């Protein structure tokens, strides 16, 4: 299929991008890596009048350390995150998750900002940011603001971004010595969106864990925190954590697997991810 006709503008500055977004409310879309957007255009699932290309905005790209935070520019390609030594050291969860996202060719173009803004419920990065207690920096017509990942994902493909907002960066607290993380997912084929996935962080607490954050993906409209299971896991009761998942997540049937299978797989993931976190050494 061919996309419906659309205009194209290459933004020269962040302000210009924000300005262009205001020209035709709802009819303008930012173009980042294009790996999700262009497919929706080609399938005519969306028909924007204008694409604003932010690929030239170098200030939106790159990974840097800002005291006790990692700051990742929205336009940073997924491949850069996958290969970054800073990421591996300060946000190892992302390093674990990245190889599961799509295929190398797509990660070469796809951006972290695009993935977060698109907010596919089965995507890895939104769940990772949730598990990492990340913050999302946004620039809009009325200035800049920061939203916590827990508050950013609002619904199916729906985020805290307004129609004139640009996601500019992601801030992640750097991992301390007692930081633990785990990641796993079930996908039929390497690179597919997951049937169910789990991104998790915690702090070591002797042989156990504390401050456990479990963010599931593929089980709801947004990344879903499994709060009961977090408590049980922090209390050292893995079986109880698995059992309590039925109260934490409510996956729906989809074309691959039904809810019961997803619920079961969520439990399998929890055991595997918990093992990663308890067996890890700093």
């Amino acid at each position, binding site marked *: 299929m061919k996309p*419906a006709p659309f205009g194209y503008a290459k933004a020269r500055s962040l302000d210009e991008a924000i300005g262009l977004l205001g020209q035709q409310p709802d009819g303008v879309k930012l173009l980042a890596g294009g790996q999700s957007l262009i497919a929706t255009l080609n*399938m005519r699932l969306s028909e924007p009048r204008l694409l604003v290309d932010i690929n030239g905005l170098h200030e939106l790209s790159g990974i840097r350390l800002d005291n006790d935070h990692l700051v990742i520019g929205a336009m940073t390609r997924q491949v850069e995150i996958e290969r970054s030594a800073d990421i591996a050291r300060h946000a190892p969860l992302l390093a674990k998750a990245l190889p599961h996202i799509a295929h190398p060719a797509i990660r070469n173009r796809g951006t972290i900002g695009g993935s977060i803004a698109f907010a596919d419920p089965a995507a890895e990065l939104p769940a990772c940011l949730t598990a990492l207690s990340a913050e999302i920096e946004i620039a809009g017509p009325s200035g800049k603001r920061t939203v916590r990942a827990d508050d950013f994902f609002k619904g199916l493909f729906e985020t805290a971004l307004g129609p004139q907002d640009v996601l500019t960066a992601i801030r992640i607290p750097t991992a301390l010595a007692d930081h633990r993380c785990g990641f796993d997912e079930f996908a*039929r084929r*390497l*690179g*597919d969106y997951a049937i169910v996935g789990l991104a998790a962080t915690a702090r070591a607490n002797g042989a156990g864990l504390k401050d456990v954050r479990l963010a599931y993906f593929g089980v709801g409209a947004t990344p879903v925190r499994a709060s009961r299971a977090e408590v049980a896991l922090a209390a050292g009761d893995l079986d109880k954590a698995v059992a309590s998942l039925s109260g934490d997540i409510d996956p729906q049937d989809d074309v691959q697997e039904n809810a019961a*299978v997803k619920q079961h797989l969520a439990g399998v993931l929890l055991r595997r991810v918990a093992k990663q976190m308890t067996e890890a050494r700093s």
Partner: protein
Amino acid sequence: MKITDDVPSTLTALDRPNSYIGRSVPRPNLARLTQGRGHYVTDVTLPRMAHVAYVRSPHAHARIVRIDTTAAKKMPGVIAAVTGPELAKVITPWVGVLTHLKGLKSAPQSAIAIDRACWQGEAVCAVVARTRAEAEDACALVQVDYEELPTVTDPETALDAATHVIHADLGDNLCFERSLDVGTVDAAFAGSDAVVETTFVFGRHTGVTNEPRAIVADWNPGEQRLTVYHGTQAPHMMQNLFAKHLGLEESQVRVLTKDVGGSFGIKVHTYADEMAVVALSKLLKRPVKFVADRIESFVTDIHARDHRVKAKIGVMNDGTITAFEIDDLTGIGPYSVYPRTSGIEANQIVNLTGGPYACPNYRAHTRVVFQNKNVMCQYRAVGHPIACAVTEGLVELAAAKIGMDPLDIRRKNLIADNAYPTGSASGLKFEALSHHASLDKLVKMMDHDALRAEQTALRHKGIYRGIGFASFIEVTNPSAAFYGVGGAKISAQDGCTIKLDAQGAIVCHTGVTEQGQGAEAVIAQVAASAFGVAIERVRVITGDTDNTPYGGGTWASRAAGIGGEAAWQAGKALRQNVLAVAGSILQAKPETLDIRDSQVVDAGTGKERIGLDEVARIAYFRPDTLPPGFQAELMATRHYVPRAFPFSFTNGIQASYLEVDTDSGFVKLLKHWCVEDCGTVINPQLVDEQVRGGVVQGIGAALYEQCVYDERGQMLNGNMADYLVPMASEMPDIQCGHVVSPTADSELGAKGAGEAGTAGAPACVMNAINDALRPLGAAPLTDMPFTPGKILRALGRVS
């Protein structure tokens, strides 16, 4: 060019000096294709060419009340918006029946739906515009009022009295039914020590080609001729059909098929939206192009399989198989596909089930019913994966029941290698098969005993691995028995014309076609060997009804076996003709001469006498120097069709080794083996890659692929994200081996190899999964594809 000899030649009659037969010659089109210089239909651009896009029915079954194209026609670039009744003035409808499938019936199908859409995706209006994008923009403005009709989706209830009849004129929803009862089935079951009965289910799936279906039709009113650039497997068949339904002579139609980006049987059928393109070109008097996009391909490219088979096997405690019985049911969409029909897959299942085994008692029943889903028809290995999975599934279940090793039960029952010629209970004739030799070779290749030991050791550690087998037979090199006898104008014979050019190189024109499988390479190898030149001196021309001998094209694993033999005979004939010229130049008896590496030589000593370039120069430019009355004939044509057997059966055996994660239900494929016997192996690398590609498609059926429909006839996963084709990361290493039993029906002795992989892979993956889970007491899995959910339910992990 690097040529590797990875299989020592076992040839005799073909043992010419410098023979390429049995050598892995790289295909001549490789550099061109890998450099992006292929010429696919998608690449064709003609002056004044317009593009068509279709408005497709969103409903599985609906009456078309009214179509308003006013707004669409006003859109920029739009040339025409054409409905079914308008197009019906240019092209006649067709009915997909064959007389030898007795009782098979279907309804007339039109290029564009006339008053009723019978499946979700059927075209109801065509919009022709300067570009595809403009055509799609205008499609969005075509107003169609539908009145939804009751949908028939479940084959199980399609024949119930209460079910809506899709085509009232047909009286019911039954397309075809066949029964067979051979030997004494009831008595055999009654006398068996054990009987195993189960139901196998095969998901509806489709062939996903790299290049989608594509066609450019160019009606030239000045010439009164239609030229069609078509990504098809069978150019002559399409020439006949385009002519017939446009009311033209075949001589008024030329079909050109250059590079084709994969077919798998998808591109050997009449598609309504392609028939509409030739009609639109005639109507609009200009070239019209249609390239199916991926989304419309999923709801219009033929689907296949989708069978439910209730099956039963009887065995004695010593492993003797006493009887097979099957009851098959399939739903094929609203029309039997033209001209090959949608009854063939079911018919093949009846023919092939139990085929590898010497068991005289066999009962089969199949019913093919209409339903409101996309049409189904022949896809790679037609019927084989189903017949094989049913047979081999039953055999391994029976072995488990009587506590016998799965290889031993096969050794006991496979037709003996010295029993040929013989036949199957269903009436198939086998010239020479090698089930036991293949099995022995497989056992060695896979180091069977070590693998079993490893499997047992790992079970103690809670790791569940399975080993599964599948013996199979494959129909190749079909004679007219497949289609011709049923009245379809599909050529079973094929031809090859070879000419010597003025510098002593040769050009072959062949009726078989290249789909990416390497037919071009095989024809070049055979022609070079038969005639006596280096392969660099051979050019192969395919896919042009104006310029190639009349032929069937590529399907049913026939290109190498049939087209190859025609090339072999043509090469020999041209050699005789050239030697006659050389003999008269050299004053030597032609029988004392031969052609080797572009030189005419003394046959006995190999001494060079005269170069082909010199023979050509004299014959073409100085014929005056040849003896009076002597006419050089430097172009020879030969045709070939198998006559001694209706089909040339091949055989083989596959094995799968895999691990089931019993917590998640995920299957990891560890290794796959296939030993097959396609007779003479012309090009080992091409054969192995055909086997590997076929195995991968079979694995797709076993684990991944399924066109999921809801009860209202809506396909739910018609895109590349949700329809899971097998991908490289999940595929195991696939090791191939060969046993060679050449067919005596041709000098070349080659049978087909294109479908063997697909035929056996689903069965052995299924058997391996069940082998892995048997110690856990899981109910046998017989419902493909085997998704994690199904495995978890079989294990009782999920209810």
